[in-house]
Each structure stands twice: as structure tokens, then as C-alpha cells.
């Protein structure tokens, strides 16, 4: 079970219709790769965020699979076109089954 996990997202509050905006996301997570060993030589089990998705008004914007080489506190930045006012939904899926969610509204104006 990963501890201290906290998702963060930065999305402009306003955009003109059709604008391309920059979205920054970060989730604090230790991203244990599953390849390290502890002091006794036992493998430390993998514990990472394995999938990240972003939806806008129910439509998929991005859907990424993370593998074990992704660094601690994964930061993802991408661009999206905003056709109308609505809400971005971000979801991170943890190896331990936890799902972390965050959402941001964008207004047109």
C-alpha cells in the first residue's frame, strides 16, 4: 500500500472555445519498481501507478500505461483542445487497487 499519495493538477480556469490548453499533472507516489531488494536480499514488490487517464466531458483525452521505469512522483504534461465548457477528469490507477481521482472545470470566455 503506497502512502502519501496525492494527485495534483493544473488546468487554466478559462479558455476560448477551440483553444489548445496545457495541462500539467503530478501525483506524489514512490513508484517502487519491483526490481530493488531490501537489506535481507528479498525483492521489494512492485508498487506503481500503472495507468493514467484523462477524460473531458466523458470523452477520452489520454490513456497511458505506466511501466516500472517511470520515476517517482510521475509528472505528465500534455495539451488538449477545449471545444466547450466542461470538466476534465483525471484518474490514476495504483497497483494496490487504489484509484485516485481529480477533476477540474474549464469555463469558456
Amino acid at each position, binding site marked *: 500500500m503506497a502512502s*502519501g499519495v*496525492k494527485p*495534483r493538477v*493544473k488546468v487554466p480556469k478559462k479558455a476560448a472555445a477551440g483553444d489548445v490548453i496545457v495541462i*500539467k499533472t*503530478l501525483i*506524489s507516489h514512490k513508484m517502487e519498481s519491483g526490481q530493488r531488494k531490501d537489506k535481507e536480499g528479498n525483492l521489494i514488490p512492485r508498487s506503481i501507478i500503472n495507468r493514467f487517464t484523462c477524460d473531458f466531458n466523458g470523452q477520452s483525452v489520454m490513456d497511458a500505461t505506466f511501466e516500472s521505469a517511470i*520515476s*517517482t*512522483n510521475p*509528472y505528465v504534461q500534455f495539451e488538449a483542445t477545449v471545444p466547450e465548457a466542461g470538466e476534465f477528469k483525471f484518474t490514476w490507477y495504483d497497483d494496490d487497487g487504489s484509484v485516485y481521482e481529480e477533476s477540474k472545470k474549464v469555463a469558456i470566455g
Partner: protein
Amino acid sequence: MKFKAMTAIAALLLSAPAAMADEEAELVVNGDLNLVTRTAAPAHLADSLDEVLSGWRFRSDETQALQLDDFDNPGMIFVDQAMDTWGTVDGEKGKSCASCHDDVETSMKGVRAVYPKWNDSAEEVRTIAMQVNDCRENGMGAEKWKYTGGKMAAMEALISLQSRGMPVDVAIDGPAEVMWEEGKELYYTRTGQLDLSCANCHEDNYGNLIRADHLSQGHINGFPAYRLKNAKLNTVHARFKGCVRDTRAETYKPGSAEFVALELYVASRGNGLSVEGPSVRN
């Protein structure tokens, strides 16, 4: 005529800084907080430096950019962690930081700018880390944190953030003067098999390359600093230890009187620069 033009060009080439990224770049955080990264040297440095430059100015464009937006600054993750610690009860007296100091944004404002600082009741110069551990031990009845450990670095980052943008203004006279002189002595004393003092690199050779990296003037206004090389916050004393080790000397211990004196002196060299912590360095 032609010869003159050539010399002019040569002079230009020679005077171009060997190092840094964009000379004119300014450090503006989140688009609205201007930080002073270049200013006139404090009076006590009159013989050695004209102006003091923040370590930020010696970093590449990409590294500099990480400090322009708090979302991009990886040090802020640790600030969030320390914020949680601030309100968490620890130790046998059932207190948290907030029990005495209330809101960190008001109670810790300006603190980072004036430390290390003479403490009247303890009759010694204290760093923020010493003060934090005094609080933990005597105020909370909790275990002390490791001087250069992750929890301490994060708490220092949280405290530094409340003074970000304020000029470093460490007092070097009065009761602190003796220790300041000791720190100055250490700064100019060569150590190790390589026989190097702090000044050999950070005063005589700043801007020049040390292996693949540019030497800064060694100011500590940006500490605790998030270093890309180890992906965590680094404290001043951990950096001192690394530097002294690099001269191939036995180092002083983090938290030792020697390093506290050195911190006081080095901090005073950066008087006038903005508090930047947590900064991003490579």
C-alpha cells in the same frame, strides 16, 4: 583598423561569461513574484566581490525553468508533506508545530531570511534545524530529527517558503560576531588532499567549469535545494559535507559548531539576495 576590430571581437569573446545560460534571464516565480538573483555584494565582501549572484543564475535554461512555476518545482512536494507534519501531533506532550506556532504562513514569515541567528536564552547561534529540534525535544517531547534528514529538509522548505522573496539579512555583529569570524576563517582555510578552501572554487572560480558543472558563488539563499541528481531536498550542512568531502578531507559533522559557524558566514555572503527555498539545482 581591421586589427582593432579583431581585437574588439576577441575581447568580446573573452569577456563573455564562460558559463551561464541567459545572462538577462530573471527569476519570476508563478508570473508574479520577482526574486533578486543579482545584487551588490554586502559591505563585508568589498575586497573580494562586486556583486553576488544566486546559484540559480549558473544553471541551464531547463533547470532554471523548473523554479519559475511552483507546479513544476519538485521541491513543493516536500513542502506539502511538511505542511501535513506541521499539523500532526507528535511526542509525549501531545503537541504539533501548530499548537504553538499556529498558522505557518504568519508565524514563520521572515524567519528564513535572518537565520542562523543568535539565541539570547540559549546563548548560542542557532540554525533553523537546531531550533526545530529544540522545539521537538523540549516543546513537544518528541524525538529529534536527523539534522540533514528528509523530514528536517522538508520542514526547512516549508519555513523557507514563508520568506520567499525577502532579502537574506543575517546579522553578523553583536553576539554572533565571534562565530561569524570563525566561519570566515573556515571559509578561507584549505582542507583535504586537494588543498582547497571554499574560496578557491566559489570566490576565485565561479562561472568556470568543475567537470561538467558550473561553479556558483556558493550562496545558500536557495536552500533547502531540490537537486535533480538525487531527486530530493538537500540541506545546507549536507552540501557543506559534500563539498569538504570533495576536497578529500575528513568532514565536520552536520550540526557541528564548525558547520553552524560556516553556515552563518556563508549566509551573510548572500545578504541582499532573495530567499529562494526550495530552489531547484542540478
